[in-house]
């Protein structure tokens, strides 16, 4: 499956929400209505950089029925692979960037009896597009958001338009995940978005308590970078270096090998690639636990290699 053609977006406004968070509003550079988007959708934005273009996925925050505006919030990460640092330092109002049309694997479940949102840090972004819809439809919602103690006020401000009695912002991880999950009524759907550690903890707690897989939904922003490794392309014998600030997918693309991809966050399964030798470090949500332990497949958009050399069937 391929995505539609990229759309040109012009930056209409940039707003600093905190020293590390910026909200960016885009309008269509060609004057056409933007493609409609659903709650939880993201776009893949191409950000030009000194060391080549970076393509990062960002959730669209807020619903714009009239299709005039997209908004994203970008956190500048310490070990930026280039994308977020570039967004924070180089982009200016009026710049035109290229982006994929919105897509999503992180969707509101229409028949859920209750929606339980658990997030951490910048993982708030898809929830910012969920909340107005949940409120408009008058659905049962509970939200817990975990943030660093010094960022409580930043996130309180972001959530102010969506305040409801069942919303809690937690400074640090003092509150137990199991305590949140334990009291939920049958038919509750759980949505998780945030740092990998938090997501793993919440997912594990949900399974311990017997939650069905079909009621657990998560959005990953992909762990950024890791130890460098070498990838060997079995069909040509070519070897490529995957840098510590680069995904395997980006390394393949940079070498002119366009692997088909869609979500770039380990969820959709589009970039699935066969592994012939070496031990993958799985970071995706697409492969099952059994498939991961087999070690013969990898999602190069997020996953890396434990062994110094990984041989793939490309």
């Amino acid at each position, binding site marked *: 499956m391929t995505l539609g053609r990229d759309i040109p977006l012009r930056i209409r406004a940039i707003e600093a929400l905190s020293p590390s968070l910026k909200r960016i509003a885009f309008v269509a550079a060609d004057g056409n209505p933007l493609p*409609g988007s659903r709650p939880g959708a993201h776009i893949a934005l191409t950000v030009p950089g000194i060391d080549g273009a970076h393509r990062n996925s960002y959730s669209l925050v807020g619903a714009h029925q*009239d299709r005039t505006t997209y908004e994203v919030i970008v956190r500048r990460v310490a070990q930026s692979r280039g994308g977020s640092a570039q967004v924070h330092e180089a982009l200016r109002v009026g710049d035109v960037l290229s982006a994929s049309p919105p897509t999503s694997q992180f969707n509101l479940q229409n028949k859920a009896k209750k929606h339980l949102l658990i997030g951490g840090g910048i993982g708030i972004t898809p929830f910012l597009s969920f909340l107005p*819809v949940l409120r408009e439809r008058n659905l049962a919602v509970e939200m817990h958001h975990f943030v660093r103690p010094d960022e409580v006020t930043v996130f309180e401000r972001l959530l102010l338009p969506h305040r409801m009695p069942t919303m809690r912002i937690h400074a640090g991880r003092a509150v137990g995940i199991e305590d949140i999950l334990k009291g939920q009524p049958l038919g509750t759907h759980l949505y998780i978005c945030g740092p990998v550690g938090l997501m793993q903890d919440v997912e594990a707690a949900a399974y311990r308590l017997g939650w069905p897989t079909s009621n657990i939904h998560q959005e990953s922003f992909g762990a950024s970078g890791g130890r460098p490794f070498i990838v060997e392309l079995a069909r040509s014998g070519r070897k490529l270096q995957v840098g510590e600030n680069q995904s395997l997918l980006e390394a393949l693309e940079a070498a002119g090998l366009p692997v088909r991809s869609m979500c770039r966050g380990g969820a959709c399964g589009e970039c699935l690639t066969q592994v012939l030798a070496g031990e993958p470090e799985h970071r995706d949500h697409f492969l099952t636990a059994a498939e991961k332990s087999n070690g013969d497949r990898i999602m190069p958009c997020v996953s890396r290699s434990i062994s110094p050399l990984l041989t793939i069937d490309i």
Partner: protein
Amino acid sequence: MPATFKTDETFRGAFNYRNSDEAILRFPFPFTEDSYMYSVNIEPHVRGGPTGAFQAVFDVDEHYVSECRERALVLSQDPNRCIVLPHMLAAEWDTLELIMESLAADYPDHFSLTRDGLQWRWINRPLGIDDTFVFGDPSSLPFPPFEYITRQAQGDFTLQDQREDNLFVDGGMVTTQADWSLEFDVGMSFHEWHGPVPVAHDLGVFDRALQFLLRIQHDHPVRRLNWTMTVNPRLDTSPENYPIWGPDRTTITPENVGEKLHLRVELQTLFRLPRSNAILFGVRAYLASLNELVRVPKWGRRLHRVLRDIHPSLAEYKGLPRYHQCAVNFLSEYDDGAVTSMGIAPDTNTLS
């Protein structure tokens, strides 16, 4: 684009329906080769294709005005032909937007959409409609948004909600169906509503099709053709009205088969809807009599071979047994044994 619309056609009672020469040549003949079996025959739904029926997102032809009137008539007698479950409201607006944008882009002489923010003006000249409304506000339209726009479109539509790695038929406008009931199926999962289809389950067709459909992306619609046969040019062959049309199957004779028996082709389209993540399924039915179809020599030959060799279970499921042999005998007169070209194109610009 049709220059004129036939405004006096009827699809019931005394029946008044025929295809012009242009309409025959643009017919979406469904058989790509001389035999037929189920397959996941899905392709991208892009403008352009082997006949004129594939030139628009939603094909409008000379029968448009009459078909919309037939739909209104069915709804006046049986309002439950249009059902949308409450959680599908976002999908209703998605559908309205998609159909309005597509018709206005494909047929600017007949339809126009003007947007000022959320204030929209919709003009449908063939039906004499000029409405201004607020997108997202159901109270600003005379019908709920899905019913409003599908009353102005040819063919049936269903809305599928996506959840639990499955699709659920949670809404629809179904007045021109080949013997299935929305009221019976509404709320069912993909495998449930396909339960009655023979053979295909064993071939794994539905498992593969579902996996494909779950991954359809916005702006990348797909299509497939399906077919059956209908006695008389009747659009509403519903289970609800079986007592009315079921007995028609016994009326086929060697003398009337060419005129009375129609190939019914469904141009089925599937669209991912942007706000709701639902899938819109369009089932656009085309009818052509055997007499009309055999005027394209390739189609006459091929239809003979397909019907002659069809799998008995499929013939049964499609309701053919009563008149099957009669149709094959009639068509054999038009099959000289010549080789036919691959694909569905008529291979001619004029009719015999």
